[in-house]
């Protein structure tokens, strides 16, 4: 016993040591601590190390999890994984500590007479299936819905899609990735006809400039940011932080340029104006590889229920586009963007210099935007006009927030409009799905139904009578939770929640299903650089906790669809992945075989002839290019990418006399999303125990607000009380406040607005008008 306690204490000391080394690495790129990180764990520990991807964020760092006597006891970065090369961030190092949390969900809970009763899982699944069946019989297929996650594994997303779209025959399936990267998807599809970035993380080793658009990578993607800092030190690469708030990323960058919220649209156009005006256009590239189009403007903001929008693209020529840009000279844009003419020209000159390689990174700042698709299009315009795309060190690169937002939400397609290959509106895609799923083609509906926001509006209206959520916490993460919490609490909807821990959303459930955490099951994730990563089950889950995929299969069997789900409990991950791979066969999206993924720390698709494709659309690297040219944007029928004419339009709600501040929300390095995992990790919780509201010091002074004082932040929708933070983590511009959303005790999303991009349907969490008062 004494030896065991000594080992545990020694292990904790090692964890503390690694945390400090990680912090030092983010402050001093290239810092060396001899062989300490390799020592890892006490010498007398007998650990079995197994590889897998990290559970947090979309970077997809490779981790090695050390297990001893059936328990996960240590984590270290996988030195063989090209993503992180052995590095991990503070969340990554500590991730396994959350599964030891005392309030783990270990058994199914069923609400009876207002109280949760521990119930055998089999009985709870019977109830879920019966409720689903009964709802469909009485109210129709579209009265049942499923809301999944970018944290669901590829097999879980695939089975969810097959169950809802193929077996039941409803498109009432959407996921929380709608809230974080749907605008990137819509941007890639409208410009290139193919989703996901064309480049890979190796771009970091080649770029001369990294321009981050509204993206605090030092906190949200710290391992990638460390790699950028390393290149800054080694090669003199430059980092330009372009944002609405000064953050750790800004202070570590070579330049920080701040802009007024929403005006990124105008600045991107101003950069294009300058590129054309100064003759920096790569004429050969755009003549061979680009078309010009415009779409509908003044599309609204989706604020009303049942909002519908379809864009109507119209081809234009280069001269019309040039004429349109005349409204976006740096001099004109500077007046409302609060970015100097000099800085706009500085940014344009970086993109315009043919001898400099530029990667643009973005995440929520550009995506959570009421014109998110446009903003994505505009950034592609810059790279297309200059021909800086699909080459090592040159390209636009959208980062994701969840470990499988790409692999599961985007590639498997757990959105209402998606199928594992293509979209529900396309007959050819429906026929392929029907063939692989062995269901009648007519079974898959041809129209999308509810995207995330509209799905919870439908719950509130009483149109959806049954909803099943997995690995997500919508009552903390949706915008305007003040409406959707009340909506889901109504008796009209039967709520099933599968999760690892109790949280705000499970508090309103009729049935809570205990889910396995990621290392308690086998699975696959897909990260931001199109890398698919597999891991084997490492430890047993406690009690009756079960993989979500297997719970879907069990319910499918109870609904009478057993023959469509003939998978075995032991090998269902492998069987499902092999079935799913059929959707992507071919040079454009081929997925690596499972035996390769089991051996390696992931492979990038398209995986062709035993090789990952690192840069798509470039004939030098991508075997799917068949037009005989250097580049081939084969996602579009004519092989050409689209340069979109997209104007600046105002945000739906701007500060005024009554609500004088912009509210911006986001994340912090210590916590991951709604905090349900990281707040159960003592070291992370202690480091950042609660949310706060950041002020610019001038605003705080004018209002007589001091650090730590409680402040009520109110909008037209709701309010939230938080302690003030001045000159601490970040610095908002004057007239703006910032609040992180991880704290379920301080629900800032009661305050946010549920306006969304009409094309991507992704909400804007970065801009609404609020007032502040001392309480």
């Amino acid at each position, binding site marked *: 016993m004494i030896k065991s306690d000594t080992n545990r204490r020694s292990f904790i*000391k090692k964890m*503390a040591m690694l945390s*400090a*080394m990680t*912090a030092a690495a983010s402050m*001093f790129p290239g*810092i*060396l601590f001899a062989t300490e990180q390799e020592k890892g764990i006490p010498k007398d520990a007998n650990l079995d190390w197994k590889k897998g991807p990290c559970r947090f964020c979309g970077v997809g760092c490779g981790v090695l999890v050390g297990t001893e006597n059936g328990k996960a006891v240590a984590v270290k970065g996988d030195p063989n994984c090209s993503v992180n090369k052995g590095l991990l961030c*503070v969340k990554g190092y500590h991730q396994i500590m959350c599964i030891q949390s005392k309030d783990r969900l270990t058994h199914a809970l069923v609400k009876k007479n207002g109280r949760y009763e521990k119930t055998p899982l089999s009985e709870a699944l019977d109830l879920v299936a019966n409720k689903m069946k009964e709802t469909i019989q009485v109210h129709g297929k579209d009265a049942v819905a499923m809301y999944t996650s970018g944290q669901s594994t590829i097999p879980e997303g695939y089975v969810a899609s097959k169950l809802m779209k193929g077996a039941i025959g409803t498109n009432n399936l959407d996921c929380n990735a709608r809230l974080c990267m749907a605008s990137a998807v819509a941007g890639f599809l409208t410009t290139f006809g193919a989703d996901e970035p064309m480049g890979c993380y190796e771009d970091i080793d080649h770029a001369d400039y990294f321009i981050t658009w509204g993206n605090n990578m030092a906190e949200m993607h710290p391992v990638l940011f460390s790699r950028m800092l390393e290149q800054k030190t080694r090669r003199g690469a430059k980092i330009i932080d372009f944002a609405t708030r000064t953050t750790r990323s800004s202070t570590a960058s070579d330049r920080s340029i701040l802009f007024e919220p929403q005006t990124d649209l105008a600045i991107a156009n101003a950069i294009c104006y300058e590129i054309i005006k100064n003759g920096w256009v790569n004429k050969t590239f755009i003549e061979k590889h680009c078309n010009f189009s415009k779409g509908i403007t003044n599309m609204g903001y989706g604020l009303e229920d049942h909002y519908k929008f379809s864009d109507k693209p119209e081809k234009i020529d280069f001269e019309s586009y040039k004429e349109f840009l005349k409204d976006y000279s740096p001099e004109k844009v500077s007046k409302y963007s609060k970015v100097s003419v000099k800085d706009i020209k500085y940014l344009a000159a970086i993109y315009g210099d043919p001898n400099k390689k530029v990667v643009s990174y973005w995440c929520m700042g550009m995506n959570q935007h009421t014109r998110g698709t446009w903003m994505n299009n505009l950034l592609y315009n810059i790279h297309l006009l200059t021909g800086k795309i699909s080459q090592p060190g040159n390209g636009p690169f959208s980062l994701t927030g969840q470990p499988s937002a790409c692999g599961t939400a985007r590639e498997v397609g757990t959105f209402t409009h998606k199928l594992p290959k293509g979209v529900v509106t396309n007959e050819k895609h429906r026929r392929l799905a029907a063939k692989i799923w062995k269901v009648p083609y007519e079974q898959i509906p041809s129209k999308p139904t509810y995207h995330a926001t509209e799905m919870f509006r439908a719950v509130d209206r009483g149109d959806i009578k049954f909803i099943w959520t997995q690995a997500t916490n919508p009552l903390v993460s949706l915008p305007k939770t003040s409406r959707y919490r009340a909506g889901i609490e109504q008796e009209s909807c039967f709520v099933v929640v599968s999760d690892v821990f109790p949280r705000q959303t499970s508090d309103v459930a009729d049935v809570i299903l205990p889910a396995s955490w990621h290392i308690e099951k086998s699975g696959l994730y897909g990260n931001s650089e199109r890398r698919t990563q597999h891991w084997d089950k490492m430890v047993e889950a406690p009690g009756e906790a079960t993989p979500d995929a297997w719970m879907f299969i069990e319910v499918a069997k109870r609904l009478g669809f057993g023959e469509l789900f003939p998978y075995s409990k032991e090998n269902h991950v492998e069987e499902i992945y092999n079935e799913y791979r059929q959707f992507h066969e071919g040079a454009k999206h081929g997925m690596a075989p499972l035996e390769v993924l089991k051996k390696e720390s992931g492979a990038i698709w398209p995986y062709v002839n035993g090789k990952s494709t690192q840069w798509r659309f470039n004939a030098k690297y991508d075997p799917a290019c068949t037009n005989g040219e250097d580049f081939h944007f084969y996602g579009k029928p004519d092989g050409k990418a689209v340069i979109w004419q997209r104007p600046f339009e105002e945000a739906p709600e701007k500060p005024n006399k009554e609500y004088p501040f912009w509210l911006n929300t986001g994340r912090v390095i210590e916590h991951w999303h709604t905090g349900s995992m990281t707040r159960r990790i003592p070291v992370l919780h202690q480091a950042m125990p609660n949310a706060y509201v950041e002020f610019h010091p001038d605003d705080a002074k004018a209002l007589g607000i001091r650090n730590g004082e409680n402040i009520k932040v109110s909008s037209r929708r709701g309010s939230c009380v938080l302690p003030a933070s001045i000159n601490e983590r970040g610095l908002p511009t004057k007239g703006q406040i910032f609040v992180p959303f991880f704290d379920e005790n301080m629900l800032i999303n009661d305050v946010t607005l549920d306006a969304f991009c009409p094309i991507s349907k992704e909400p804007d969490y970065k801009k609404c008008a609020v007032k502040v008062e001392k309480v």
Partner: protein
Amino acid sequence: MPIKSYLAHAFTGKKEELLGALQKINQCEVVPAKNEDVIVLVTDTSNEIEEETLKERIEAIDSLKILSLVSGFNPPQN
């Protein structure tokens, strides 16, 4: 039984001096960076009072420029 980790920043050219001072303290475990004036410090004490006293003692070292807390654990004694 707190275990805490810190980054101890030394004044320029004083890293070895700081390292020596920290190594003399029983409850401290140190790993110096090879190429920066920074030392990773892990403290292991019996209770919060002892931890506070230790912290005061460390902060009194002349060669120490800044002591910044990175993480803290408080595992049970048994």
